[in-house]
């Protein structure tokens, strides 16, 4: 896409030779961090930042500063630069475009040489790219919108321990989204009561149940109790249905030692899946991914905390970048939005997240917020999880927006069913299967969705009741994290 921009055609003003290293303060653009003629190498990491400079700060200088502060620069010239091949290590801002319809905001493209990064370490990558620069005074706000990760770098990560295809093979479930539910209430259930919810939901028809992000080991329920009762429920439901079932046992804890202990116990009890929260940190996530790989375990990641830095449109890190990091870090599941549920999620932006998690090659799609072609080079695919305020009556919309390779988590939409949890689970499963059947038959399931559900409800009372209870519930609020580019109709000549 071309964004013609008459304002930003600044040539490089790099000061070279002896003058470059004279003591004192030099503009970043003069230190070699602005190279408008630079052609990114296929091995470069490229970051796209949305920068909002302070009033009076030139956008090119701001972009150069971001490049500098996220790579080699410090605020003043240092002679020790000259002991290094510093031109290689300098990040290079090479393009600055104004953001459409957003005065004062600019997209800055910055290329980083691969030599800047430790192989296979999200911690190292993020310490560079988002380490210091977000507090930089000359900027009002800064957001990391997208990254292009070169294949050479992608290949230094193991990627998901299991991935979508192998997960489906292990579970023997193909051709439809998986169904899950988060056990509610989030807090206060004893282990024994908690397992009851798991059993009812799985026996009723769900594939998975899930601990919530803040279910760890609190006074009302010790983690070992939870694991034991949950596995009783899983095994009992499996025997009752003849179908593979699972429950995400959250092993999040205060230390790695505790997490390993909990994961080992889950493994010993025969669980097929464990869960961690994003708040444990990138290194802990990579460690747990390695552990999961060694123990044939599916690794579920709850994106707890991400909203603090992904939601605001001008400052923070886009969730599409988090999605890329987490695919590298090696989780098998990640919560990625529902579009129609209670949590933030513009349809096109969410589509971009899903594509990043599931495709082997992402093509640039500005309207989905994808700024770069990204080759995943065979890295396994991450199963996105849609959770939060969704119910059976939205099944056609969920299938339309999210596709087939997704876990649909109906927490309230299962447990809140008037006839009980098993009835709620059955309602969801019947709705899902009826919708898949109709889609495969070539019906316009999005338009005919309500009719398809009503027809299916004729042989399933619990679905009838679910539709009567929640049929009209929707969460229609404007999204904050929306794409900056909209496809425009081409004039026909």
């Amino acid at each position, binding site marked *: 896409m071309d964004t013609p921009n008459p304002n930003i055609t600044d040539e490089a003003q790099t000061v070279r030779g002896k003058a470059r290293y004279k003591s004192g303060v030099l503009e970043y653009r003069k230190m070699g961090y602005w190279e408008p003629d630079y052609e990114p190498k296929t091995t470069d990491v490229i970051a796209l930042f949305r920068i909002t400079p302070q009033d009076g700060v030139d956008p090119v200088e701001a972009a150069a500063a971001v490049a500098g502060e996220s790579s080699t620069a410090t605020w003043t010239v240092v002679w020790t630069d000259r002991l290094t091949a510093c031109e290689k290590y300098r990040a290079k801002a090479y393009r600055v475009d104004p953001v459409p319809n957003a005065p004062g905001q600019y997209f800055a493209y910055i290329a980083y040489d691969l030599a800047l990064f430790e192989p296979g370490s999200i911690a190292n990558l993020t310490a560079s790219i988002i380490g210091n620069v977000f507090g930089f005074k000359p900027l009002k706000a800064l957001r990391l919108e997208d990254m292009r990760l070169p294949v050479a770098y992608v290949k230094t990560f193991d990627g998901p321990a299991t991935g979508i*295809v192998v997960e489906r093979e292990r579970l023997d479930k193909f*051709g*439809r989204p998986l169904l899950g539910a988060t056990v509610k209430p989030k807090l206060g259930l004893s282990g024994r009561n908690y397992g009851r919810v798991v059993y009812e939901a799985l026996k009723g028809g769900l594939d998975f149940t899930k601990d919530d992000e803040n279910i760890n080991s609190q006074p009302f329920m010790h983690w070992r109790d939870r694991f034991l009762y949950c*596995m*009783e429920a899983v095994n009992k439901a499996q025997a009752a249905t*003849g*179908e593979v079932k699972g429950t995400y046992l959250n092993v999040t804890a205060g230390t790695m030692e505790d997490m390993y202990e909990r994961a080992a116990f889950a493994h010993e009890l025969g669980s097929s899946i464990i869960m961690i929260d994003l708040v444990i940190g990138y290194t802990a996530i990579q460690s747990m991914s390695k552990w999961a790989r060694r123990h044939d375990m599916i690794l579920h990641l709850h994106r707890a905390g991400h909203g603090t830095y992904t939601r605001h449109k001008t400052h923070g890190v886009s969730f599409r970048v988090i999605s890329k990091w987490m695919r590298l870090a090696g989780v098998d599941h990640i919560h990625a939005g529902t579009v129609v549920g209670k949590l933030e999620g513009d349809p096109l932006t969410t589509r971009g997240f899903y594509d990043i998690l599931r495709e082997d090659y992402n093509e640039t799609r500005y309207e989905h917020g994808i700024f770069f072609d990204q080759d995943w080079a065979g890295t396994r695919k991450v199963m996105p999880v849609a959770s939060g305020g969704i119910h059976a009556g939205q099944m056609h919309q969920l299938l339309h927006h999210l596709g087939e390779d997704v876990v649909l988590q109906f927490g309230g939409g299962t447990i809140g069913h008037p006839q009980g949890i098993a009835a709620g689970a059955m309602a969801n499963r019947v709705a899902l299967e009826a919708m898949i059947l109709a889609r*495969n038959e070539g019906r316009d399931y999005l338009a005919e969705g309500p009719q398809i559900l009503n027809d299916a409800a004729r042989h399933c009372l619990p679905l009838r009741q679910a539709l009567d209870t929640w049929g009209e519930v929707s969460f229609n609020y404007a999204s904050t994290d929306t794409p900056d580019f909209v496809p425009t109709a081409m004039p026909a000549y």
Partner: protein
Amino acid sequence: MRLTQGCFSFLPDLTDEQISRQIQYCLDKGWAVNLEYTDDPHPRNTYWEMWGLPMFDIRDAKAIMSELAECRRIHDDCYIRLSAFDATHTWESLRISFIVQRPRDEPGFMLTRAEAAGRTLRYETRAYVVQKPEGARYGNSG
């Protein structure tokens, strides 16, 4: 009990016309349809017996429906499932799988618990029918 493996087990058993439409969906995607049968429905019993090879290069569902009819005739008291393979790079696995025949009577599974150290239990799931030899588990044929 009703075995709920596969994509459509919560719906009333599919009619031949419905099965045929699902097959055509698979064929239009370029997937190879496969028929398998078993009389051991354990959830981890991955390898059901194959009814011939996956059917490559077929264009019309009717060709597969005739194979299904034949499979049903020979194995009239087994589970039969229909699945479809997608050979696309980075998938190279099944895209759909659903049961197209089930025995008239499904006795289900026994769950046994063996007490182990601490409060740990060792579970074993076993289909009641597997006490009989293979081929004689459901009804008199199979």
